[in-house]
């Protein structure tokens, strides 16, 4: 959503998770992605359409709502398509707190440097500590590491305390399902089988609750 100017087109946020990088982090998933990877776990966030347009300062404040958060994770959608606004968001957040920044992108790092898809890419790369790059390839999903498939690479652009202990490439996966109001948000790169389980469980709970409500309604 590069046309959104200085606003970030946000698909979802999660404040305070341990499923997407070292320590307690806040995540922003942006809306819109130029890639259409087969088997992508977030197909709803691929279309480049307005979702929730948020000013960088406002988004930074939202992500820092939990005082224990020590890092930001940028994902999507494609963060590099909104690099300028996200770089501004990170700058605003870092003005408040010392934070590590982890970013997922479907672009390879070499391409980002050679032919950036957004004028803000260089600025965003300058503030990212760990970049996980490359498109998702379902067949290369080995069920391990904080990356969707084996072809994706982990670039440690800057090191920070605690990051050395974190095995991005080969750690057992973990994920969180956060229930907020009527929606369920799966956070993390899911362990094998979880994505199907998540969908099926959500469908089952939804059906049961709807049935209960209808019965209660006397219909």
């Amino acid at each position, binding site marked *: 959503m590069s046309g959104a100017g200085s606003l970030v087109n946000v698909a979802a946020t999660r404040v305070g998770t341990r499923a997407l990088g070292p320590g307690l982090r806040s995540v922003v998933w942006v809306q819109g992605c130029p890639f259409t990877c087969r088997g992508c776990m977030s197909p709803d966030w691929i279309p480049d359409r307005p979702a929730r347009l948020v000013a960088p300062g406002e988004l930074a404040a939202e992500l820092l709502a939990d005082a224990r958060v020590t890092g930001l994770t940028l994902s999507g959608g494609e963060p590099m398509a909104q690099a300028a606004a996200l770089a501004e968001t990170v700058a605003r957040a870092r003005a408040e707190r010392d934070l590590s920044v982890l970013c997922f992108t479907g672009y390879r790092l070499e391409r980002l440097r050679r032919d950036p898809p957004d004028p803000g890419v260089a600025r965003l790369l300058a503030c990212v500590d760990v970049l996980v790059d490359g498109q998702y390839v379902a067949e290369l999903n080995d069920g391990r590491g904080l990356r969707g498939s084996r072809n994706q690479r982990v670039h440690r652009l800057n090191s920070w305390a605690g990051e050395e202990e974190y095995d991005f490439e080969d750690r057992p996966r973990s994920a969180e399902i*956060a229930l907020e109001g009527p929606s*369920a948000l799966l956070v993390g790169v899911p362990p094998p089988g979880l994505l199907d389980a998540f969908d099926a469980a*959500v469908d089952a709970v939804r059906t049961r609750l709807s049935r209960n409500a209808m019965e209660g309604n006397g219909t």
Partner: protein
Amino acid sequence: MSGRKRIQVDESAWYRLLRSAEQLREVRRDLPKLVEDVRRQARVDVERGFADLRRRQQRSEESVQRLSEQTRTLEAETNQRLQQQAADLQRRLADGVGELRAETRAALDAQQRAMASALAAERRERIAQSTELTQRIDELTQDRALAEELSRAWLADADTMAALIAETLPHERYAPGELAAVLTRLAQARGNHELGRYDAALAVSQDGYHTLGELRVKVEQEDLARRSWQSAAVQAVALVELLIEENAERSVLGPDQREIPGVVLDVDYWSGGGLADFRRLAGAALRRARDEASSAQALQRICEEEAPMFEAQLSDAVQRAGLSQLASQVRVSLADEVAQVLAETAFYSLVDAEFADTDQRGAFFAKLRHENGSEIVLDIERAEPDSGGVVLRVVSLDHDTESEADRRSRAEAIQRALAEHGHQVHAPLAELPPEPEPLAVGEDRYDLAAHRRRGERSEGSTRP
């Protein structure tokens, strides 16, 4: 490749559930019974408070009889007015108990206005009398004998009034230092009288007497006002105490707004000890309300700020308890669904499930084992202590249990896949045995047997 959002509850169903929890906010008030209980308790308190007042009035009447003729009538009238005010207040407080706080406060305000009006009238009357007497002083001073007699009488009356104030009224609380200042001036008047300067003595002793009379009225009325606030504060907090007990257990409503038979919400348990905190706070507030040392301002604060705040917090605690119980049900429900699907589609089977320390308010864990021996744990807890939201973590524990053969097999599969996608593989792909890795959370968080042992040891927990 790091998130997916789904709507898990239809809006209509979700809001139906929320409304069920919202309805708990309405603190249950069995009014006739509550009012009768508060009324009975308050009458005891009011009667106790006014017993002191009646003893003081009796003492005041005895003092008036010792006054000279020139002040006796005036003070007898004042006594009568003060007694009437006190009797009115006592009746209003006793009658007004059933009307509870807002109405009681309105009655108190009216009482305050009546008192201020009576005081103003009395002041006007006294000033008029003083002016008349002052005009006669010139005539009086022509007659030394009469002046001496009048001066002695005013000094004696002032002594009687000063003694009444000093011995029966809490004057230092409402008018600190004022009695001492008048006594100093009266001592000067007495000195003048003994030196034969009756004219000077007469003017000061007369003025001193009237100042004492006003001081007496002021202290009496401040004391009455304080008693009003004390009674209102005691009633307000006593009502909160009764509301706490009335709401300790609530029935649970289903999405259809109907009570679920046999299901009781233990508000203290599900609000994390919220009611026990309120009992303690309300008990402390009631002790302060009954404390004779508490000021009128402090009592007013209890009545107007603390008691309504307690009621609002009680309402929050009841709702929090409802949401907490609802969240607990959703936790188990969702974990059950995820576990079932993992079993059906990914060949995991449920081996164990338990709440953290067997406490239903805390996290819920379900451990699943794959047929190859690897395990995952579903870890479900509330997002925030007071929110209805929950977080489900799926933690893979396969590092320690995965066999070398499994890893090699997976490495080969990946190698094939890479080749199929045109990636050049220069060397046989082999995975190194992974290093043991500490969990982000506590080491024994997923040792469910340990949770059970801790739960058994926890004597204090009472689960519904």
